[in-house]
């Protein structure tokens, strides 16, 4: 390739996005989280970032922070009793388990393997499952 051809090549805008662009609150917060089989797991209550330290000056050229995890809360008690559970009851779903973000946030793992669903699993196994007819679909 000669010099003239190089000059004619369009230069990449250094500020142009290199991947899918999302706004955290607009596109991720409050979205439903589905597992790899499309089963609802929870909703996104908050996001945890890696690489931001409160009150510490950010040196120019430092690596950008990354999304570390989805934060959520057990849904079942809220569905039964209403209200909101405290922040100390937050459950963390590592962002590395996310396989896609669209109308919903999709995970690449089964919901049963996550801490976010243990309350539902426990209630299903130990309470609902002991009620006659509680272990199969309605006929």
């Amino acid at each position: 390739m000669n010099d003239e051809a190089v000059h004619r090549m369009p230069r990449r805008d250094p500020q142009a996005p290199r991947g899918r662009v999302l706004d955290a609150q607009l596109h991720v917060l409050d979205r439903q989280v589905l597992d790899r089989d499309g089963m609802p797991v929870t909703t996104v209550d908050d996001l945890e970032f890696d690489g931001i330290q409160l009150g510490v000056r950010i040196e120019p050229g430092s690596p950008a922070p990354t999304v570390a995890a989805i934060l959520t809360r057990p849904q079942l008690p809220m569905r039964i009793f209403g209200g909101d559970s405290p922040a100390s009851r937050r459950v963390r779903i590592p962002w590395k388990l996310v396989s896609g973000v669209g109308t919903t946030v999709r995970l690449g793992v089964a919901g049963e393997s996550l801490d976010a669903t243990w309350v539902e699993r426990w209630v299903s196994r130990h309470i609902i499952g002991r009620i006659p007819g509680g272990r199969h679909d309605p006929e």
Partner: protein
Amino acid sequence: MILSDLLGSDALEADGRRVGGVVDVRLEISGAPAQLLAATVVTGVLVSPRSRVSTWGYERREETAPLLIARLQRWLHRGMFLVAWDDVELVDEHRVVFRDGYEQRDPMLPPAPRT
């Protein structure tokens, strides 16, 4: 640090002048490749000079329907701008401080990919 600690924070210039509130955090799925999805990096913060919350994002998208709500939202968030993460100097409780000479950029989102 979590997202809700950043949202609603005061956005300050290096000399302490308040220029608005942080209404959102811009992300890009463009980091190091991972097993399922590339790392999602923070590329900037969105600042609204007149509000601390943004609900539907009309001011960042081309959408115009329903017209009345779109116009109201654009008016409410007029003057919104994006500050690249490279221009952020400090994140502290309830405040984000920008570097001296930071740039106020266009907050518009690129068109969503067709699926």
